[in-house]
């Protein structure tokens, strides 16, 4: 039976079952982003003290739901679509056990809904971290457990597809780099779900009364084994997508397969271990462990990110130079397609992830410096730079890439899409930078009232802290507008975008449609060949292939070094402790 189609514009093959799963995962992910985005309005307008929109109980409920829907449901559903794309589509292979794929998807969906029901009932406003002994309703935890199990099943379908691809020899040589990155994300996902199970299952049992006590510190240690590694799924996935976009838009070839793959391997080996940066100011954790954990483990992962930070733009530069954009250091960048939202979103993501997310993360993950940052609004500022301008913006870029390829639709309102990465990335960057500032002044995260109204004793933040939060909130509103623009383009394209021929139709890949009317007319795709051979002189000559990128990398390093030592200086001004 013919079950494959080929996209005439991109040359990508889609297997029917894989295509359906990609679509449903991506669409549900986008719905979660919509929910999170609406909730973000409540969050920013409450943290803008002059507006102070929501009452306290609503604020904490909304913040809990914002964090969970954005960080867990949006990112992970979308990542499932990426996994199926990186296996079935890139390797031109049929999806392994589609039924299990669907089972995994539905479990995730049921879990996500169950968790949202618990949160919106108002009795589970425990934040996404749900630190014990504060207790949520049992179905809060159960929802998360079902979601995690579903994700694990889809990850195994991904592994199964890889095995089939290898056995049926659907490709020549080794798996492509993008698939390698996806494998990295999937392996980390297995670790993540394991930690999650170890801590969430007992917590669920505790919430229904079968377990009498859960140690609060143990909970934190294991919970972050999940919480931290789940962020590395995001990083591995979005870095893989950066490489994909560089390849699709520029025909860019990795500068060195060896280096990029080795960097992904470092993620697998070291990111799990690095979770102690969340417990640096907790009682009783030894200094040796913290140093080992944040340096040996974390810095090798940081090293990996610094490598990708060079090789992703570097590969684009090499490709652009080959096309003749060779003037000066930066002609390749100036002449890049800044009006194409796929590129602009991806590049803004790369820069903000590295310069803001990366640097702030390493600084606050330093054993002693964490003292002056822990639990301030600096922390959400940092991770909005990693997971919003980093991961989310990259996934938006991928959506623009997939609308014609996967959904066979023309982009709806392309001029909106063209501006979207700038509005979203720009607004978010403002929010991030100003919250970083407010955090440095000690403004607390997850806090309803900067005025402490009604408290028995008074404390006042400096006036400038209010200004920083207000400007940040305006940036946040701009980002919400940018998020809405994305949703309009994405959903609009599916509903109203012009059909591309041959059209698969949005629902065509799903069962029940008569096959004869379909475009699934390929029985077995042609084998995926290896990339064309490298030029004779590849990496044998002396010069720099990508000098502009190297200059940018040095700029990153200088910023990093300066900001790092500024923070030590700041630390040295607080009360001596030991």
């Amino acid at each position, binding site marked *: 039976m013919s079950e494959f189609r080929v996209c005439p514009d991109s040359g990508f093959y889609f297997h029917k079952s894989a295509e359906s799963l990609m679509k449903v995962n991506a669409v549900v992910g986008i719905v979660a982003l919509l929910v999170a985005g609406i909730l973000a309005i409540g969050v920013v307008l409450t943290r803008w003290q002059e507006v102070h929109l929501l009452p306290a109980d609503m604020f904490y409920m909304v913040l809990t739901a914002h964090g969970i829907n954005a960080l867990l449901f949006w990112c992970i559903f979308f990542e499932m679509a990426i996994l199926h794309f990186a296996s079935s589509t890139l390797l031109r292979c049929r999806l392994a056990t589609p039924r299990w794929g669907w089972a995994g998807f539905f479990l995730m969906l049921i879990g996500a809904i169950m968790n949202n029901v618990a949160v919106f009932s108002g009795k589970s406003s425990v934040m996404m971290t749900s630190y014990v002994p504060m207790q949520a309703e049992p179905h809060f935890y159960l929802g998360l457990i079902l979601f995690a199990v579903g994700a694990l099943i889809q990850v195994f379908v991904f592994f199964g597809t890889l095995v089939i691809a290898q056995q049926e020899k659907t490709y020549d040589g080794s798996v492509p780099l993008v698939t390698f990155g996806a494998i990295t994300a999937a392996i980390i996902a297995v670790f993540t779900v394991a930690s999650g199970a170890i801590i969430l299952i007992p917590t669920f049992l505790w919430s229904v009364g079968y377990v009498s006590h859960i140690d609060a510190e143990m909970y934190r240690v294991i919970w972050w084994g999940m919480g931290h590694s789940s962020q590395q799924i995001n990083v591995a996935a979005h870095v893989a997508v950066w490489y994909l976009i560089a390849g699709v838009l520029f025909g860019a070839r*990795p500068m060195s397969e060896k280096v990029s793959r080795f960097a992904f391997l470092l993620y697998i080996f070291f990111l799990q271990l690095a979770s102690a940066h969340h417990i640096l100011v907790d*009682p009783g954790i030894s*200094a040796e462990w913290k140093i080992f954990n*944040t340096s040996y483990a974390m810095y090798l992962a940081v*090293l990996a990110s610094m490598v990708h930070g060079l090789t992703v733009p570097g590969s684009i530069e090499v490709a652009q130079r080959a096309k003749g954009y060779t003037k000066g250091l930066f002609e390749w960048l100036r002449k890049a397609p800044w009006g194409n939202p796929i590129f602009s979103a991806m590049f803004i993501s790369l820069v903000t992830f590295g310069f803001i997310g990366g640097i702030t993360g390493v600084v606050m993950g330093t054993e002693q410096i964490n003292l002056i940052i822990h639990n301030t609004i600096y922390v959400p500022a940092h991770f909005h730079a990693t997971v919003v301008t980093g991961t989310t913006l990259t996934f938006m870029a991928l959506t623009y890439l997939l609308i014609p390829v996967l959904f066979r639709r023309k982009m709806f309102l392309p001029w909106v899409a063209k501006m979207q990465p700038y509005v979203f990335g720009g607004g978010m960057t403002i929010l991030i930078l100003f919250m970083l500032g407010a955090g440095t002044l000690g403004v607390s995260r*997850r806090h309803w009232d900067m005025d402490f109204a009604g408290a028995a*004793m008074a404390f006042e933040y400096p006036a400038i802290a209010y200004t920083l939060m207000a400007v940040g909130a305006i940036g946040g509103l701009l980002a919400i507008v940018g998020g809405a623009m994305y949703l309009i383009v994405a959903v609009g394209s599916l509903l109203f975008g012009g059909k591309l021929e041959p059209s698969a139709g949005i629902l065509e890949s799903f069962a029940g449609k008569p096959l004869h009317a379909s475009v699934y007319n390929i029985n077995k795709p042609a084998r995926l060949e290896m990339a064309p051979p490298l030029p004779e002189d590849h990496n044998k000559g002396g010069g720099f292939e990508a000098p502009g990128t190297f200059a940018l990398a040095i700029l990153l*390093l200088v910023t990093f070094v300066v900001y790092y030592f500024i923070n030590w200086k700041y630390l040295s001004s607080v009360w001596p402790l030991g």
Partner: protein
Amino acid sequence: MTSFMPPADRHWWKVPVGKQELIWIAIALVWCIIMFLMMPLWHVYGKQNLSTEAYQTTPAKFGAKVEEMVEKYTVGEEAGIPIVAPPVGSDIYMLGRLWQWYPVLKLKKDQEYRLHLSSMDFQHGFSLQPDNINLQVVPGYDMVLKITPDKSGEYGVICNEYCGIGHHLMVGKIYVED
């Protein structure tokens, strides 16, 4: 040509790496090592380090110790909470509970104290402002730190770990006198 095709060379791990990448990896590695060394160096030369002294405890046990200190050294009262001026160098206590920091401490500048922190219920965040020292306060654990307030004045202790609807009401005080 691209990242989404199998590598051009079947033996891709044997393909030489470009000079530029090697230099960058070397620079990045050196920087990672410097960052690593900063942490142990700060333990030796820096003044702000977290002790690892901590004990398992219970709310009842910890509460009893706090009360003992309060009974001995209370010098006043603010908003219904005792102000306590314990002797220099002694063990001093502050507990977090829904929703207050208890008691208020009055300390001497440039003198060292052993501060014990714990929670009676949920997790709380000890956030000393405006100095901006932030610690996680976990029920069941008595965290001990040697502190040396080096500036006189009035400090706020706010809670920066979400602890329920009254989270923003948790404001405590530490006074430091010359």
